[in-house]
């Protein structure tokens, strides 16, 4: 019987090793696989490459915590501002940054999952971020060639999951999660709820893209409450 549910965070993260390329979903406080990221920090694999939209906000949790522990060699993202942890490491030359426009980042990840090695886009053509990239004109428009991104591991948050690993999301919680789930060798999901069976018509991420699911009470509500209080 197919059953991708695992008992706890340790079982969910088993086997992640030094040097892993790790995609981490989420946009703002929503859709962050926060429990998985914090458990990864405890596990402590080193020399990680992180692919995410942001570099995170607070040194106490999430991606900045991974960085603060010295576990991250490089980050590929569109918006590294927010945490002083990244800024300090970056200015000290202790972490590498690949800055990618947000839509190009999303498409590179989607292509990684879809078996498309490279594509062309007008985004960034004629700008500093196209330096060193191959340029080609289609229908009179200059485009840059962008290569797919894949990962060893994707950490994903979902609203509900079933035993087959089918996922549904809530609100703006999809963001990078469904495409990262497609692009990694090992996709690990923290789900707010387990469902017995999801309606085939409304599933967003089919279970084929998912390897393990762990149930975790969402911290979105708590985070938002804290934000409001501050």
């Amino acid at each position: 019987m197919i059953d991708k549910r695992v008992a706890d965070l340790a079982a969910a993260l088993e086997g992640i090793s030094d040097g892993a390329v790790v995609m981490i979903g989420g946009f703002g406080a929503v859709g962050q696989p926060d429990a998985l990221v914090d458990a990864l920090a405890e596990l402590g694999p080193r020399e990680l490459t992180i692919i995410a939209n942001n570099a995170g906000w607070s040194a106490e949790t999430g991606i900045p915590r991974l960085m603060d522990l010295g576990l991250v060699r490089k980050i590929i993202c569109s918006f590294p501002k927010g945490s002083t942890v990244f800024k300090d490491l970056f200015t000290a030359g202790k972490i590498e940054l690949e800055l990618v426009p947000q839509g190009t980042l999303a498409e590179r990840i989607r292509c990684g999952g879809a078996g498309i090695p490279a594509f062309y886009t007008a985004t960034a053509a004629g700008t500093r971020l196209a330096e060193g990239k191959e340029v080609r004109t289609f229908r009179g428009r200059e485009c840059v060639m962008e290569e797919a991104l894949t990962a060893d591991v994707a950490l994903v948050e979902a609203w509900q999951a079933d035993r087959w690993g089918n996922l549904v999301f809530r609100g703006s919680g999809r963001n990078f999660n469904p495409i990262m789930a497609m692009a990694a060798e090992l996709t690990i999901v923290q789900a707010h709820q387990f469902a017995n069976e999801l309606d085939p018509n409304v599933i967003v991420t089919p279970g084929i893209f998912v390897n393990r699911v762990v149930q975790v009470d969402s911290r979105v509500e708590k985070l938002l409450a804290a934000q409001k209080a501050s």
Partner: protein
Amino acid sequence: MSETIEKALGDDRVAMTRRLAGDIADGWYVNLGVGMPTKVADMIDDGREVMFHSENGILGMGPTPAEDEIDPWLVNAGKKAVSLTPGAALFHHADSFAMIRGGHIDLCVLGGYEVAENGDLANWTTPSGDILPAVGGAMDLAVGAKRVWVLMQHTTRDGAAKLVRRCTYPLTAPAAVDRVYTELGTFAVTEEGFRVLTLADGVSLADVQARTDAPIHG
């Protein structure tokens, strides 16, 4: 500086934002950049229907909800709590940027450091000082949307022109901007450069030209 110009410059940005909002056609799909452009959503008159897009996967984004109506699972591109309007849809990041890059967004409103008379836009990083450059979705939006309107002060705080012959700041996208909305007026980017569409109350063409580093066509 004349008194009327001083008044226009002292405007709290409401008038220019309202002017832009009034130029949005009913039924358009509109993406609003972070900062000043976000305010455009509050200035669409009642009874009009404009669908706001947020690059993190929302079409049909509504105003900031009351504290007790906040859905913690719903934020906008600026990471703030938002609501949904009737007819809204939710999707993932690749589909969201397919809308942008594929030319399906009727209008994108962005802020700007500089706009050149050939439509070049610079709005993502400074020439020297920005140790930590962050691009977000600015480059995708600037090349993808059907129309790009820049909403910004006409000059910097130091009085330097932001409508220029050629950008000195690093480009976000070449030949991307269709219009610029400032406190002095609305300016189209045309084949011959900047052309006035509207002047703010009490502002003359000469007033604008004096604060612009490229020819302004009346």
